[in-house]
């Protein structure tokens, strides 16, 4: 039925998210891309749950809650980085190199 279309939408959204995470230099945008990835997964879960029971919706609610927490922590980190460096450019944060 419509499942394919949902899955395609989710795949596109996921790919956009991955692209954003890998390519964008702004930390805030990277976080937003992560949200896209998570929401792509949510679409998948909900789409499947309409066919195979309600557990997928429950799972989606969990993911939303976790995502909210993750954004809270992530934005706090970005804020602190900005305060220290006056920039949120991820390329400059390469001090973990060997």
């Amino acid at each position, binding site marked *: 039925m419509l499942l394919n279309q949902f899955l395609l939408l989710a795949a596109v959204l996921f790919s956009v998210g991955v692209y954003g995470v890998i390519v964008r230099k702004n930390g805030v945008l990277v976080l937003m891309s992560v949200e896209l990835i998570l929401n792509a997964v949510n679409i998948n879960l909900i789409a499947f749950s309409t066919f195979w029971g309600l557990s997928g919706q429950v799972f989606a609610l969990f993911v939303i809650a976790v995502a909210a927490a993750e954004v809270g922590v992530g934005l706090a980190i970005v804020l602190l980085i900005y305060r220290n460096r006056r920039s949120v450019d991820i390329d400059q944060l*390469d001090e973990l190199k060997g």
Partner: protein
Amino acid sequence: MWFFTHVWIMPALMAASFVLILLFGKRLPFKGAEVGITAVAICLVFAGATAFNWFTWSADSPKLAENAPEAQAEAAEVGALSEVPNQCSNVVSGLRSSESEGESSASGAEAPAGEAPTSGTSTTEGAAPAIGPGVGESASAAVPAAATSGGSGEETLTRPIVRCASWIDTNEALVTWGTQIDGLAVMMLVIVTIISLLVHIFSTDYVHGDRRYTHYFAFLSLFTGSMLFFVLSQSTLQMIVGWELVGVCSFALIGHWWEEKPNSDAALKAFLTNRVGDVGLLVGMIILFFAAGRSFSILDINILAQEGEIRHGVLLVASLCLITAVMSKSGQFILHTWLPDAMAGPTPVSALIHAATMVVAGIYMVARLYPVFFDGLAISGSSVNALAVVGAVTALFGALLAFVQKDIKKVLAYSTVSQLGFMVTSLAVGAWTAAMFHLFTHAFFKACLFLGAGSLSHACHHSFNMVDDMGGLRKIMPRTFATYLVGTLALAGIFPLSGFWSKDEILTGTGSFPGSDGANGSYHVMMVMLLIAAFCTAAYMTRTIWYAFFGEFRGHGHPHESGPRITVPLIILATLGAVVGIANLPAEFDFLPEGVLTRFEKFVEPVGLYFPAITHASFNPALAVVSVVVALSGMLVSYLYFWKGAFKPLQGLSERNALARRGKAILINKYGFDWLYTTVIVGFVKGPLARATYWFNQTVLDGIVNGVGKGGVRAGQFVYDNIDQTVVDGAVNGAGAAASGSGGVLRHLQTGRIQQYTALFFAAAAILAGVFILFVG
């Protein structure tokens, strides 16, 4: 009861006194002496109270009728051990539980208690076999013995009071330490505290102004405390500790004036000679530990030995090892050499060592573990055994040695050796009570004699040479003379002084004199040797009286009577030495009320499961007369020789007759034992043996060691060149280079850029997903 359970206070008090004197003694007004005297005085009061309590306690003890049925006798014997807590003795707790089982089964189906099931519910392995046929036999053996010894047809069972605490607890064995109170321990407590108190008081005058006055009193306290600790021992391990403590204290006190070489040598000699015996003690105690089912408890060992649960061979070996310990500690023949040299210490210390502490430790150990010796040496019904030989030879040869000494203290020292021989012989012939009684009486008169000798030397510029520096002191020192005379008469065994009673009991105990009955064996040789020794004792003691108190004063200066702190202890000891003989009047004196006869035997000798059923020789008037006549004739011979100049041909005999000269030389050289030890044994070890060992060491051992070393060096060089440098180092270097190279390549991967990592992560996830879809899904 409070005194029995808190008797540990006595050694603890003496130990505290030792510490206090050492720490604060020098700042106290009497330099620490008052602390020691107070502590000993408290101990004496405590010991007196304990003894008094013991009398009433014994009077309340359960009686065992003469011909009670076996089961009843056994139940009463186990019941008499009611004051032995279970954790202090495996055997007693085992007996107790099987006893209660026996009762319940007897009430149910009339099963005799002797056949009570041996599978004790919670008892340990060692305890279980204690019940069984053995108990029944011994009980049946004990009942006729009771009939022969007590006239009244019943025997009072001894109720020992044991208290213990866990000391070392392994899964294999529980080692306890604590106190074991019975008549023997109580008697020793009384002796040790009385003698120690008098010695303390005597010492305040005798070592007055000494450079180590405080130190002296500290060690006197520790010495007393160690002996009390030893006497109260509940386990054999505790006994060993007390034994060694006593040895250490005697070492410190014998070497009190260590600045002079002979004194420190004497202290070392005492210590080293005792080490020889201590090896025997350790081995013997270890044997007994395993024989008694891994238990150090004295009660366990005694009961098991007594019930025949330990094989005779094991007991024999153990008792032989312990005899070695007795030989060294109690100055028995061939290891007695340290005792006369120990006279190098201050005289009060000698009195303490010889009367109450050190040397009686050996006797006490035998008395304490008597079942081991009684069964191990097969004392009953025999006529000779190792212990008896050692004791009788010591009694005789020690007495002979006393004749040639010039030093009054050495005469007394050999006299102690000889008297200890009496006690050991007495133990060895089964006359346990006589031995303990002789220990009791001997303590008083020998302490009196030693302190008397101290008083003499105090007057004669600290010389003990009675031949050259004394003489004619009878008039100048009347109190010392009177007390010394009483001590001498008591030691010689003149009726009715205390020495007579105890020596007579020992002689009857040999069971050899015609007409005596009731002794455990018939030791003819021992009795003859003891009679000769008694003769010699009387003779050499009279000789010391002649040299010290009669004739002309041969020393220099003006001797004077000693002060009250010296004479009062002398008077007390002489009085006690004269009268304590009435403590054990023979049971045959039925013209006296029964309440005054054989008091010592009644209160001191244990009766029950942990003590063999020894019999008591009856008093023999003929033997008493003989022993007094022997003693009197010894004194008479000396009197005639010295006072009247009789036996003219004998005087100077050793200058004229080669045989007599040789005999005297042997005595002066003390049978050559010192020569044997120092020249032969030590000389052999130092000379040929040391050289041979050195040669062996230098050539053979060093050759081997050097050869091995050189071989090792060569092998090492080869390994270094061929294996280490090429193979091992190559491998290590290669590994290092490989790691470094791969690291150099791989480090470019780690850029620190999170987005690269993320890209890799997603790429990997994509690949894995593809693989999953292709191959699994």
